Structure formats: structure tokens, C-alpha cells
């Protein structure tokens, strides 16, 4: 009973915030609504007893990815009126893409996977059951190779991102901290002995 109330509250919030993400005029507010939709989604996952995935969704997407999103969006000076000019012109194409997406989603995650029989088979676990441990066991045994391949792809992406920002040879001067730290007094200060001068 209470679970159902919680589910419908968060589901409504998720749909509302997802709608606001695409309809808000201000991109910063859009990003914040995206954060809210991630939160509602995490809450729904918690109801499915997937606490690891729910918390990781918050940790990775809200805690890291969306912060960088916000960072970038705040720095950009986006003129929304220019972006909205071609709305009617592109509407048919947009609707076409949306329908295609809807059909493909329906085929992959359609009602065959989500009918009453499939939902009823979700096992209820006792409080000592650790979702995290089960997930870890599955990832590192049955799905070890896909997991490692995903890791290598991420590593390649990191290296690519770094090499993209380091294209040019460095021409500007930057301080070298190790040199600054290792400086001793005698490197910088020279004491000159001289006799007192008298007129």
C-alpha cells in the first residue's frame, strides 16, 4: 500500500521533471530538472530492492556527470530564441525519429518482458541479502570479459580526452612545483659582507 503510494509519487515526479528538461527555456534549470529526474528514478529502483544501482546512479550521474554538465552549461552563453527558430520546420523529422525510437523500445522492452507473470517472479529477499555482493559476483564471474572490455573502452576514452586537450606543444611558461619546493635559502639569498662605510 505505502509502496504503491511512494511509487506513484516518484513516477509522477519522474515524468514531470523529464518533461521539464526538454521544455524549460533556461538550460541551467533544464540540467537541474534532469538531476531531479535521476533522483526520482533512483527512488523507483530502491523500491525494486536494487539499492546498489540506485545509489550508484546518484553517485555517478548526479554527483559527477551532472556537475560537469552544469559546469559547461553555465559557461556557455546559449541564445535559446535562435535555437527555437526551426521548431516547426524540423517537427515532422522529430516526430518520425520519436516514433521509430518508440517502436524499437517497444520491441526490445515491450510488454512481453513486463507482464504480470514476469513481475510476480521477482523474489522478495530478507534484510540480510546484499544486492551489492550479488552484483559483484555476477560481474566478476559470468560477465568478466564484457566487464573488462568496457573498462578498456573507458580507459581509451580517458586517454583520448587527455590527448585531445594536449594537442599543442606548450609555449607558455608554467611554474614547476617540484622546483619551487626544493628551493633552499642559499639558492635565492646572497649575503654580502662589507665594511661599514663612514663619511
Amino acid at each position, binding site marked *: 500500500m505505502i509502496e504503491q503510494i511512494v511509487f506513484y509519487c516518484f513516477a509522477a515526479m519522474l515524468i514531470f521533471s523529464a518533461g521539464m528538461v526538454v521544455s524549460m527555456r533556461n538550460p541551467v534549470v533544464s540540467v537541474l530538472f534532469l538531476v531531479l529526474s535521476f533522483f526520482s528514478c533512483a527512488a523507483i529502483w530502491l523500491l525494486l530492492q536494487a539499492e*546498489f544501482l540506485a*545509489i550508484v546512479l546518484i553517485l555517478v550521474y548526479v554527483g*559527477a556527470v551532472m556537475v560537469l554538465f*552544469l559546469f559547461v552549461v553555465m*559557461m556557455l552563453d546559449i541564445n535559446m530564441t535562435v535555437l527555437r527558430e526551426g521548431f516547426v520546420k524540423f517537427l515532422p523529422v522529430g516526430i518520425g525519429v520519436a516514433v521509430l525510437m518508440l517502436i524499437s523500445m517497444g520491441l526490445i522492452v515491450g510488454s512481453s518482458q513486463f507482464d504480470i507473470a514476469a513481475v510476480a517472479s521477482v523474489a522478495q529477499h530478507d534484510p540480510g541479502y546484499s*544486492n*551489492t555482493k550479488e552484483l559483484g559476483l555476477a560481474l566478476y564471474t559470468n560477465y568478466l570479459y564484457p566487464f573488462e572490455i568496457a573498462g578498456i573502452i573507458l580507459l581509451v576514452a580517458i586517454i583520448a580526452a587527455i590527448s585531445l586537450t594536449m594537442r599543442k606543444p606548450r609555449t607558455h611558461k608554467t611554474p614547476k612545483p617540484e622546483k619551487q619546493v626544493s628551493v633552499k635559502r642559499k639558492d635565492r639569498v646572497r649575503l654580502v659582507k662589507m665594511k661599514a662605510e663612514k663619511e
Partner: protein
Amino acid sequence: MIEIVYELIRNGLLQPLVSMLVPAAIEVQALYMLEILVKILAILIPVLFVVAYITYVERKVIGFIQGRIGPNRVGVFGLSVWGLGQPIADALKVIFKEIIIPSGSNKFLFIIAPVLSFAPSLAAWAVIPFSDTLVLADINAGLLYILALTSLAVYGVIIAGWASNSKYAFLGAMRSAAQIVSYEIAMGFALAGVLIAAGSLNLGDIVMAQDGSIIHWFWLPLFPLYVVYFISGVAETNRAPFDVAEGESEIVAGFHVEYSGMAFSIFFMAEYANMIMIAVLTSLLFCGGWLSPFQGIPVLGEPSIIWLLMKISFFLFLFLWFRATFPRYRYDQIMRLGWKVFIPITMVWVVVVAVLVVAQVGPWFN
């Protein structure tokens, strides 16, 4: 002791109250919810009290370190007891001040930003265990929950900086965002080391994995992670010497330059609540939580919440000590420390810990 008091409150106050007001059909659920509410209050009221008085302690301690006296005027009932009434007076002053909303600012975000920075630091207290039985929510993924909530604190700062429509505030927000995201990685790796060593994400289990005496605590086998975690914690809370987000001497007050009155005060409280949070976590994860350093000796060796409070006080004192003695880091050096020093150290030590655990090296992992 605390359990007995709680039983008394539950049976003597909550039970009759619920049976008087609520229909019998939902009495059990109502009592359960009321119990949780009472527990939340029992955690949050002391936390807010400490938040208020840590400001006083900070001014006193820094005063003494710098050869000054600190606040000593506002007393209680006409007695000037070392200025103990100061936080109350400050709170009253700040409540009655006007909150000025700058023109050209985004009003809604401007108001909601302090709330966003304060709420996660309070929500994180839900999973903190104070002894082996004294915990509000004993969840399996407690450590992850803490990590997720501490990573949310940055939103308050960024939104405050952006919504203020001020250059200084925006600069502070940008600095803070980059800094917190960078140090979170080192912090996450340090916590990964802890969970490898303890074999659990549950905070209570992590403390019990350190059972033994002071040399069995995780600060010794995980020493680099312990140091990195605490320093990252100082950086994450925007405290000196990493307080470039405020940077009074460069960008006035950083992200909260446009805030006044209670809105400003909420940011202040969030900073101190986060500080206490980091102190609590360091004592739980690396210093045995409520376990006694003299375990094995009859009376002194008993595990007790008093040990936990002593450890928290020690780490809080370190925060104040840092502020009183270190000059502020230069911004590029903060970034260098986070990315080029801390992250490599933690990555290497996570591997070392994994080897120690697999090889069952004593006295910690056998």
C-alpha cells in the same frame, strides 16, 4: 543506557499518544513512523547544537593559538561564562537580518541553493552508527550512500554562485566545482581501500572489522588512505587551507558573497555540518569508531559512544588547527595535489591493501 531511556520514551510517551490519536487499524505503522521521527530528532538536535557551538569553539581555539582571547562578552543570565552565549546571540542576530535578493538573479534558485547545500549533510546522518546497536538505518550499502550524499553538497555551491548574478560568486562556484569533483576521486579510492579491508559496505561491519586494539584499527594498514581521506575531506568541505571557493582576500567571499541573513547562515551551518560528518567518518572508518584503544584492559577497554565522541572531537580540533596555522593553497597547486599526488597514492595503496587481504597479513586480515 541510551536504550533504556529510549524504551521508556517509547512505552511511556509514544505508545499512549498513538493509541489515543490514530485508529487501531494503522496503529503499528503510525507507531513505527513516529519512532523514526523521534530517532531523527535525537540525532539532529545534538548535531545542530554541535554545529552552533563549534563556531564558538573555533573562534576560541583560533584565538588562543594566535594569542588572543576570542569571544568573551555574551554570557548566560548576566554571567559572562567565557562568552558561552555567543552562538545563541549570533543565531538571533542572523535570524532577524534581512535577506536581500540581488536584482537580475534567479530568485527561485537563489533561495533554494542554501537548502540544497544543507540537506545532504543532514541526510547523511541516517546511516551513521553510534554503537553496535545505535543506528537509524542499518543499510548494507551505507558507505556508498555516504559517498553519494557528500558528492551532492557541491550543487548548493554551484547554484548559489550562478543564481547570484555576480562575478565573484560565479568565480567561487567554478573553483569549488572543479575542486570538489577532483578530490572526490581520491576520496572514493580511499573508501574503496576501506571496503576491501573490511569486506563490507555496512558502516557497523566496517567498525567491527577493526576489533582488537589501537593497532588493529585501519589507520595503520591503510595509513596513506587515512591521510588522503582526511585531507580530501578538508578540501571537500571547503575549509582552510583549501578554502579558495570563499577566498576572502581574492574574491571577497566567493559563492556566498550576495547572501545575507539566514540564507548566508545556512551555508555556514552546512559547512560545519559537513566538517562534523568528515570527522565522524574518519573516526568510524579508520579509527575504530566506538571501540576503545585499550581493548583488553577491564574498564578502559569497554566499547562506548564516549570513545567515538572523543575521536570526533580530536578530528574537529584538527580542522580548527589547520585553519589557524596554514596559509591558503594556490589554486593550481590544489589541483596538482588532488590529481597528481593523491590519486596515484590511493590507486597504488588500494592494490597493496588487496594484496594484504588476499595474503591474510596479520594482525589485521587473518
